[in-house]
């Protein structure tokens, strides 16, 4: 009786989220997968007949008549993955020491600092990226500032370069890396570090054998949360990249709008999801293995 009741309560508690995810996550996901195997409609939308060329033109089995294979799509995907990985690496290097420093601050200062990290969320991403456009343009704050300080003699050529795109993505993603890192570092058992040092470990050894393994979950969490939205990001390359460094997110957007090719856009989306999921599974499995 009580077990049956427990089950009923559990079902009741799980029902809302299951329904919600079922309707708003699984159905759209299934739609994307199904659309990616359909024939593109002439004016957008789809025609309900099987069509595998959406994948063929990406992976190379297109016949050259119905669809043409072009390596450009794989290259764009590769570039997006590279940019995302770089964003993760830079965010990690920047955030790790800061998270340590903040975890050592007195309680009141810590609260203030955490508030400052989340402050950007209070304004629109688009507005903030336009602000970066104003900073990065040759006659902008950064360029003029460096010239006024005598650090540069020629105007800064950053805007509309891949550097600007990565810079913008790092800026957007820093809070997402910082918060999980901070959570892990804050709960670090400092007694263990002291014990390691007392027992003759060098500082490097103590870091590698004690600190790093304990903060690994935070690193993994931050890396995952930063990597996923970075791969598909299209706003940053749009505004700061001047559409010269096309990323896969821009490509998907273009397929659904200007090119009116929904199935091809869906196929690209399915591939992004598959690649991201695979990369993450391998990454997490490796971390687990090392952590264990």
């Amino acid at each position, binding site marked *: 009786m009580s077990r049956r009741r427990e089950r009923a309560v559990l079902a009741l508690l799980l029902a809302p989220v299951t329904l919600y995810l079922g309707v708003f996550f699984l159905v759209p996901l299934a739609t994307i997968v199904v659309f990616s195997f359909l024939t593109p409609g002439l*004016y*957008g939308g789809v025609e309900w007949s099987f069509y595998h060329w959406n994948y063929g033109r990406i992976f190379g089995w297109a016949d050259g008549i119905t669809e043409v294979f072009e390596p*450009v799509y794989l290259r*764009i995907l590769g570039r997006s993955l590279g940019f995302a990985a770089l964003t993760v690496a830079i965010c990690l290097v920047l955030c790790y020491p800061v998270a340590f420093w903040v975890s050592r601050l007195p309680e009141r200062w810590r609260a203030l600092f955490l508030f400052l990290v989340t402050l950007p969320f209070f304004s629109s991403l688009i507005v903030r990226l336009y602000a970066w456009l104003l900073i990065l*343009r040759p*006659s902008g704050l950064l360029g003029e500032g460096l010239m006024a300080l005598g650090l540069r003699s020629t105007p800064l050529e950053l805007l509309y370069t891949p550097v600007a795109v990565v810079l913008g993505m790092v800026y957007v993603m820093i809070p997402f890396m910082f918060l999980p890192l901070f959570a892990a570092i804050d709960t670090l058992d400092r007694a263990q570090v002291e014990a390691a040092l007392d027992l003759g470990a060098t500082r490097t050894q103590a870091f590698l054998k004690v600190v790093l393994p304990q903060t690994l979950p935070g690193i993994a969490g931050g890396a995952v949360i930063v990597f996923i939205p970075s791969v598909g990001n299209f706003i940053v390359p749009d505004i700061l990249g001047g*559409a010269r460094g096309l990323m896969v997110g821009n*490509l998907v957007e273009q397929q659904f709008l200007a090119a009116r090719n929904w199935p091809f856009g869906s196929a690209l989306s399915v591939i992004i999801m598959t690649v991201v999921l695979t990369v993450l599974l391998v990454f997490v499995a490796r971390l687990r293995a090392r952590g264990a």
Partner: protein
Amino acid sequence: MTIRTVAALALAAALAGGPAAAEETLALYNWGDYINPEVLKRFTEETGIAVTLDTYSSNEEMLAKIQAGATGYDIVFPSVHMQDIMLKLGLLEKTGISAHPDFANIDPAFLRSKEDPEGEYCLPYAWGTVGIFYNEAVTGPVAGWADFFAIPEKTGGKISLLDDMREVMAIGLIMNGKSVNSTEPADVRAATDYILAQKPKVTAFTYESMALLASGDLAAAHFFVGGNVFFTETPNIRYVIPAEGATMYQENICVLASAPHKENARKFLEFYLRPEIAALNVSQQFNGTPNVPANGLTPDFIRQNPNINVPPETMARLQIFEDLGPALRAYDRAWNTIRTAQ
């Protein structure tokens, strides 16, 4: 462009949250910054019909939303080729606007829709050109595309093109002497090669060029005639319709088949037939109007600028986009190649 989409969505959300009034309403779905707010104010003052305005940034964005079943909009402003597509898809309502006595104000040359040659569905709204804005103090005189692409080497100034597949491909087609609607693979290839050859000189493909032109970060930019609105006080920044040829656009006011307020929509079309209303729009938008008497009512500096109030000999070198049908695929591939080339 995405940014405007987000802004439009935010606006839509804000509007959706408003109080449900019992008064008469009309819901417009238009390009961003493509109607003088004063026109809407006047309409409301005269008719008592409250107007809401949502915006989109491309024909395809609007079509995708209407196709996906967005309801609640009464009036859309498609380009001519998109009007043809929407008519083929049965998305537009017949208004019989051409039977109105004031329709005589409309120059028949602007009845460009192939599917609606008599104007029984839509009212020709506005038209304009896509050309070159340049900072004459930096670039010297610029007459056309050849001068434009020579700017970086000659002066060190930077240039930008629109982030728009059809507009950029059109430059390549024009420079090869082809139609901007060519579906010949050889023409598309030649146009692609031309643009690829220019690409190293192009700093960016972007819609955000006007602010950078004003700040001096760009020396010249490919943009719509409406950009003139930013440069009324800056005589060194000039607009030219390229000598080799250029594209023009024309949008029409159409009523959706799904419109909830068809009667109010018809009133708006009739209101917009009046020359003083069309002229009021031009005085803020800087584009052309098909309303013949309205052209005599616009401010002097617009009426006397041959790059805005275009004479017939310039008109002759303008081309308008048509739908490419299946050939759109070849353009899309070319555009990806152009954007990823190093």
